[in-house]
């Protein structure tokens, strides 16, 4: 286990450093003068000079990169231009809302996909199976920037059952979670259905049936449990899509998370904040993948790095 952990860490560190470098370079990639882009053409020379100095853009690139990395180690992500407070503080205040939404979306996705995939596999070839497959194809084809407004029109405006936007009680969570989780549910349904159909042909399932277990016991206790392993990897990979999708979902439903903060930062040309948000999302994604690999190895020690 120690060796596996070390190997994964050795692989993670250069990727992490590469991602940090790329995010750092983004702000320096702005064509022309980045300060002019941030402040607009009407800003005075003194304003531009002040901002250039406060962002450290008057120093050599290598020195700026060094300060950027040192700052990161102490949790300093720079200062927001629009809010005039630390980027880390702004992001920290928004993280709980994003975690809440992401976890709820994941719950929706897992719940829906488990039910649909199990029913589809149990009744393979029937109309239930066809509906489940059609749902998964539809879920994959429906972008969340349309699904969100569509759900809003039906459930908030026409029926008046759920709030239009904002963060509050459980009712505020339903539409954003559905919007964010439906695509993941579609992908999981397809994968889980295939895995269930593969697992049900195994000898241990035949033995379970021969022992006289009921069909529900065979499916839930034996087949589903063994089909779950692959789902862990998919959930981990899809976690990244959820984080990226949260940018759009949070914007649609005015959900006060990191995604909406990113869009607000882009709209106000607050580049240090954009940089901070992108960095936090990318690092979270890398860490989740890393933890999943470790977890995957723990539950199935046969999995070894490089094989």
């Amino acid at each position, binding site marked *: 286990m120690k060796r596996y952990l070390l190997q994964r860490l050795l692989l993670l560190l250069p990727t992490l450093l590469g991602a940090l470098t790329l995010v750092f370079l983004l702000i320096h990639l702005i064509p022309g003068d980045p300060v002019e882009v941030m402040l607009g053409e009407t800003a005075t020379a003194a304003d531009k000079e002040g901002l250039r100095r406060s962002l450290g853009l008057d120093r050599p690139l290598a020195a700026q990169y060094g300060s950027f990395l040192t700052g990161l180690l102490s949790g300093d992500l720079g200062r927001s231009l629009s809010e005039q407070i630390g980027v880390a503080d702004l992001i920290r205040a928004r993280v709980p809302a994003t975690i809440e939404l992401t976890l709820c979306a994941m719950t929706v996705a897992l719940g829906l996909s488990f039910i649909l995939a199990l029913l589809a596999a149990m009744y393979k070839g029937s109309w239930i199976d066809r509906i489940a497959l059609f749902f998964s194809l539809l879920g994959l*084809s429906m972008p969340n920037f349309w699904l969100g407004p569509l759900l809003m029109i039906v459930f908030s*405006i026409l029926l008046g059952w759920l709030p239009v936007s904002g963060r509050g009680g459980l009712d505020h969570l339903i539409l954003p979670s559905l919007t964010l989780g439906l695509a993941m549910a579609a992908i999981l349904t397809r994968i889980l259905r295939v895995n269930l159909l593969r697992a049900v042909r195994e000898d241990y399932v035949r033995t379970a049936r021969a022992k006289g277990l009921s069909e529900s016991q065979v499916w839930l206790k034996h087949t589903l449990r063994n089909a779950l392993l692959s789902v862990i990897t998919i959930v981990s990979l899809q976690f990244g899509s959820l984080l990226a999708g949260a940018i759009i979902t949070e914007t649609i439903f005015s959900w006060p998370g990191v995604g909406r903060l990113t869009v607000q930062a882009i709209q106000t040309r607050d580049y240090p904040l*954009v940089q901070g948000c992108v960095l936090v999302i990318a690092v979270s994604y890398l860490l989740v993948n890393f933890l999943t690999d470790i977890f995957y190895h723990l539950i199935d020690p046969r999995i070894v790095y490089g094989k």
Partner: protein
Amino acid sequence: MESKGWFYVGLIILLLLVATALFAPALTAYDPAQQNLENDLLLYSSEHPLGTDKLGRDILSRTVYGGRISLFVGVTTVAISVFVGLVVGSLSGYFGGWADQTLMRVIDVLLAFPGILLAIAITAVLGPGLSHVILALCLIGWTSYARLVRGEILSLRETEFVQAAHALGCNAPRVIFIHLLPNLLPPLLIQATFGMAAAIIGEGSLSFLGLGVEPPTPSWGSMLNEGRQFLLVAPHLTTYPGLAIMITVLGLNLVGDALQDRLQARGR
């Protein structure tokens, strides 16, 4: 319906879409940017079957012309990404060594950014515009093709027909382009079909966030973004461009799924 049937359904959808985009001027009565403030937010009229937006522009024209943008972004992004992925993946897989390791680490770094996050960051920095959208989508798109090509070449490199080509004195470009490439085409075609769907959704997402195509050029994503402000009074503004994206992506997914099924059946 069998996979073949779904393939034809998807293909018909895509052919209709291409025809609509190509013959857009003949199919629509209005310029997509033509404003008529006296007819704003119409739900339906005989002149405007799909209604008008807040500036009185014809939704049908804008949806049809928006398809041109989506198709253009999808085809261009996939073409550039496949080309780059093919070159990088071939060199990486065929020659191996430090170049392979470096390229794979570069891909790892780019894949550290989930979904379209990197595309959002790039267009946020470069500013909105069609070329910036394509550049941003290509920058994340080529990685999947490079990985696929590298993997395929690694598995094909040791096969008998490649060994025979080497024994006959074929040089590296000849082995790659004449012997290996034909074997790479089926999986590449499938990946390209799904990649096109992803590029269309990517363009829509960026335009929805105001980072895509600049007004007054119609794009399905930007139409959805504009329509979002009028959900209460004019829900039709978001309905048609949303439906257009969904049908297009559905068509591509149906074709991609059917091709994948066929390839897997051939592999068995």
